[in-house]
């Protein structure tokens, strides 16, 4: 298999070379070749079939205003009102599926969950209430049952290292700032490692957070090797007798091979000296859509993610992608960011999260 890939790779390279050379005046079209084997997931088909059925009965094209007013109405408790209107059980389940999709749970995961909830729901009774109850129970069950504690020592041994990873702009540095305050207030000796040496002023940002807590910051110069900054921070923590190192890293796309390799090195080096990496936390933004799953997959593969921090959940985004992340990768959400204040970082609660998905 590897050989096939390498040959494909080189053929790809050869093709690209040819294209680059041939391209001076040409712009090839992006038409895909057929793949007759393509088959959609059955469940997803059913869901979309339902959606399609509904769309098929629509009248003239809805204007932008129509859509706006419809979506505005949807903002205020979409599920409850839709379920009240639902004229049949079938329709109620469709509404439920829609609500999940709107919460970014994703088509495949949504339909799986709805199917499971359907078989769970007892017949008879109020269909809307029944659908919601079965669905919430199903979601709670899927989300529940994980150890969400953050592993770290409290006993005076080697300092624990919590490494924060994720794509750009999800809130790694802010999360570390808040967490430093929280842990320091709880009596831990905390050192922050300014491992984001790429983004301008990221270390300054951490330093300003440090002013608000008793935590220390260890920083390197701009463009320094992040692994060495983290290493120094761990050694400094050990020398001070600190318990915890919160290691920041630069935001990076999971598709960037070299940057992911750099991250692997940071993780390796962080545990090489006097410290132990006890948590690798993926910071995911609640507004993230289906790409969140790809992010989680690649980061987990690269650095063995132990938990997710779901940030920005105080907005209108629901963060439903973590349902898919937990289902596929078994990585639980451990912390949730719900505001910009220093105390706005709370433990994840499955029941509350499920309620909020449909709020």
């Amino acid at each position, binding site marked *: 298999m*590897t050989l*096939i*890939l390498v*040959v494909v*790779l*080189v*053929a790809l*390279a*050869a*093709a690209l*070379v*040819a*294209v*680059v*050379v*041939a*391209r001076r*005046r040409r712009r090839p079209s*992006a*038409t*895909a070749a*057929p*793949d007759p*084997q*393509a*088959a*959609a997931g059955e469940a997803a*088909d059913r869901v*979309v*079939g339902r959606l399609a059925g509904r*769309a*098929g009965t*629509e009248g003239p*094209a*809805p204007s*932008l205003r129509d*859509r706006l007013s419809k979506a505005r109405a*949807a903002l205020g408790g979409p599920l409850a009102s839709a379920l009240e209107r639902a004229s049949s059980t079938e329709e109620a389940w469709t509404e439920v599926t829609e609500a999940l999709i709107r*919460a*970014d749970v994703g088509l495949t995961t949504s339909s799986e969950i709805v199917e499971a909830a359907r078989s769970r729901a007892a017949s008879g009774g109020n269909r809307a209430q029944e659908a919601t109850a079965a669905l919430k129970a199903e979601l709670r069950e899927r989300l529940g049952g994980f150890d969400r504690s953050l592993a770290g020592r409290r006993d005076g041994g080697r300092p624990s290292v919590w490494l924060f990873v994720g*794509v750009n*702009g999800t809130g790694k540095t802010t999360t570390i700032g808040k967490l430093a305050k929280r842990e320091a207030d709880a009596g831990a000796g905390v050192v922050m490692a300014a491992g984001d040496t790429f983004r*301008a*002023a*990221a270390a*300054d*940002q951490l330093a*300003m957070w440090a002013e608000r807590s008793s935590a220390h910051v260890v920083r390197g110069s701009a463009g320094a090797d992040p692994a060495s900054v983290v290493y120094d921070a761990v050694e400094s923590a050990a020398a001070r007798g600190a318990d915890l190192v919160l290691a920041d890293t630069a935001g990076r*796309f999971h*598709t960037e*091979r*070299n940057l992911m390799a750099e991250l692997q090195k940071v993780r390796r080096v962080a545990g090489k000296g006097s410290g132990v990496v006890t948590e690798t936390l993926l910071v995911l*933004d609640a*507004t*993230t859509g*289906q*790409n969140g799953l790809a992010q989680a997959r690649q980061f987990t593969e690269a650095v063995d993610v132990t938990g997710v921090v779901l940030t*920005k959940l105080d*907005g209108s985004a*629901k963060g439903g992608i973590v349902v898919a992340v937990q289902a596929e990768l078994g990585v639980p959400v451990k912390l949730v960011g719900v505001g910009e204040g220093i105390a706005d970082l709370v433990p994840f609660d499955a029941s509350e999260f499920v309620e909020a998905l449909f709020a």
Partner: protein
Amino acid sequence: MFDTLTGRFEAAFAKLRGRGRLSADDVDAALREIRVALLEADVDLDVVTGLTGRIRRRAVGEELSRALNPAQQVVKIVLSELTASLGGERLAITYASKPPTVVLLAGLQGSGKTTNAAKLAQWFLRQGRSPLLVGADLQRPAAVEQLRTLGERAGVPVFSHRRGPVKAASASLAEATRTGRDVVIVDTAGRLAVDAEMMDQVRRISKAVRPHYTFLVVDATVGQDAVNSARTFHDTLALDGVILTKLDGDARGGAALSVKEVVGRPIAFASVGEKLDDFEPFHPDRLASRILGMGDVETLIDKAESAFEAEEAEETAARLLEGTFTFDDFLATMQQVLGMGSLRSLLGMMPGVPRELRGAEVDEGRIGRITGMIHSMTPQERAEPDIIDASRRRRIAAGSGCRPSDVKALVDQFKQMRSMMKGLGGLGGKRTAASKARSSRQAGRPGGKSSASKRRGAGGRTTPKGPVPVSKAPLTLPGLEKGEWPGLN
């Protein structure tokens, strides 16, 4: 994870070849697949409904073209509808007769406002303007410092004021006049659309500077919530356009479509990388194919163009076509391709890559072994792999920690590929590649019958292990038309 849309349509249309027109039933079958594709790409549910409605009206009753099969025809309609939805009116920046021209950036936290303020400043600089960056984000610690560093890098002065964001913004206009800057770019704090207080603050900033252009900075990875926040920002600030960021990842970017539909203002710029000049006017056609998961050949080629030095590429291509491609070239080319991003994401951008390969676990670490084998060869062996005999194989294997059979496989593959590529050169080289591209483009079906049958006719496409996966869905990069995939086994 998701197969090409055309492939899915092929299945849906399998029964109806040879009819005169696309019927409502045919189109509905295809629309189901379109809905899946759009939802997987994070397009808003309501926007999906509106779009598919428009596609349906355009497609039903459409006369079947002779050049395209029904699946390809529907894809063409979908692509053109998406491109139209994403594109349409373009934003042409006109400059205020009484400078400065004021540009305001707003958006959610982490969407990339500060970075893109600097990118925009550099863009204005290139247009021959003299921009001033204004740090009005006093919320996030060190945001102004970040802007200062970026401004320094771009060679653009940065102005801020400790007495609050509104004050900083309004004072910046006088500063611009005083220092003779003709464009002012105001970077604001990230805020949630539901945060009434912060939305009021940005409204006050906007009132204070009366921007000529207000851009919403939108992250391409955003999901269904994109419409909610875009709508609130639009209601608050009356947006003029959108800057789409983080297109350098593999997010399909459906949010752009949602935002465009809701706001109705053009997507002006796209940010495609971390460097300050990874910033360009937006291409609706590229994003349309990307949203449909159809590969993004343009971006792939752009990446290739930046990864390969033009002259070097020509030389390599020449050697390939002459059949004098060496292991050193192989190594260099491989490194360049890997430098373009992960193999999986590259495969994802190529249209028509079969499922087997697209979903393959690409263990890039093992590519290191190949590199090791090549490094264990002498310069002469690299240039003339024919001289590698059993004894040399043993030495190379020992040097790279592999088995001699691994070395043999690599060398055989390499030679096979080299002779294939030489065959390509024999067909007329560059010119053929270019004209091939042209003709296949006109036909609109590079993966169509003629080339497919040629491929099958070429033989050697199946191995004792079974059919070669690639033959199911030949790659359609122009220039590879006759080149084929060298012996995949």
